[in-house]
């Protein structure tokens, strides 16, 4: 049957690649007596079923991230209130470390290693981040938390994984989120330039900047950061699951 790779990629969006591959294999077996139409209907049905939990978890993580952004904007988290530029470095660190455990706990449940680890990490990092006014403490304590959590992840079932690998994965996740944000701003910059050239009005700059400072765009940026973070978290988790499944098979 043609297009099974597409089906696999579609299902990979809502489950791990290994699980998606086995599901497509099962559907291929079943579709021999039912036909191609049944196969695609089943693939879409599976994607919808798997997607519901993802969407619920994502919506909750986004709400958590938005709440933190709102508290930050009003200076309730011990910071200086700054309503004009909500996206300071502090918030960009704090919002993801609180939103990710919410997402993972709802998506995979309390028994999941990654969910527990991210919750532990978020607790340590958020407390240290909010409690210590000194800049040095702000950055060294979360860094120490990352290292401790990485060592914890390397123990137990994943004995062959060295702490540096876990650390590298987390750094990779942060790098992806930051680069996603930079890319988003570059696209916006390009659109501004295009609009000003096309409209040929200097006022256009003012209008666009005023719009960007407003809440809807901030929400959009927040949603994008959240989405990038959760996708990276899912990929990290699925990579771990695939590795452990392969080990079990061997």
């Amino acid at each position, binding site marked *: *049957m043609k297009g*099974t790779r597409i089906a696999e990629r579609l299902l990979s969006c809502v*489950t791990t690649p*290994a*699980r998606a*591959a*086995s*599901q*497509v*294999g*099962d*559907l*291929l*077996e*079943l579709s021999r007596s039912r036909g191609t139409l049944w196969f695609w209907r*089943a693939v879409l*049905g*599976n*994607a*919808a*079923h*798997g997607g519901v*939990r993802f969407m619920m978890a994502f919506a909750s993580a986004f709400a958590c991230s938005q709440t933190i952004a709102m508290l930050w904007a009003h200076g309730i988290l011990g910071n200086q209130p700054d309503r004009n530029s909500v996206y300071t470095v502090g918030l960009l660190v704090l919002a993801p470390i609180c939103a990710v455990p919410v997402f993972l706990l709802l998506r*995979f*449940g309390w*028994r*999941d290693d990654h969910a527990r680890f991210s919750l532990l990490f978020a607790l340590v990092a958020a407390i240290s981040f909010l409690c210590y006014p000194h800049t040095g403490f702000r950055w060294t304590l979360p860094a120490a938390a990352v290292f401790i959590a990485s060592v914890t992840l390397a123990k137990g079932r994943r004995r062959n994984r060295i702490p540096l690998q876990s650390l590298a994965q987390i750094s990779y996740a942060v790098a992806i989120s930051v680069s996603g944000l930079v890319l988003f701003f570059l696209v916006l910059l390009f659109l501004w330039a295009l609009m000003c050239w096309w409209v040929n009005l200097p006022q256009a700059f003012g209008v666009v900047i005023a719009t960007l400072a407003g809440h809807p765009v901030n929400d959009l940026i927040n949603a994008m950061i959240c989405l990038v973070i959760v996708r990276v978290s899912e990929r990290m988790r699925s990579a771990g699951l695939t590795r452990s*499944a*392969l080990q*079990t*098979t061997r």
Partner: protein
Amino acid sequence: MNVGLNLGEWEQIVLLAVLRCESNAYGVPIRDEISLCTGREPSTGALYTTLDRLEDKGLLRSRMGTPTAERGGRARRFFTVTAQGKAAIVRAQSAYRRLLEGLDLLKEQA
């Protein structure tokens, strides 16, 4: 925590079907077993979501088999019920049995 009381009817059906399939418990036979025993054809989406959820809860364990050509080079995912899963199903079924005791509903059906 009493895990057995948290099992829904559908979860119990899936766990029992996995037990009945023994060493050949992957998606297709599990679905066939449910169809055969309950008379209803479950949607594959509901089945896989439940299998994933039960695995996440620690009631099931899965391992990947060897890839086969008939499945486009994809491996089967075989499930086994964990000791925790067996305990959960026994607790849930015991509750049903206690509720049925003295009612003789099963004898009337026969």
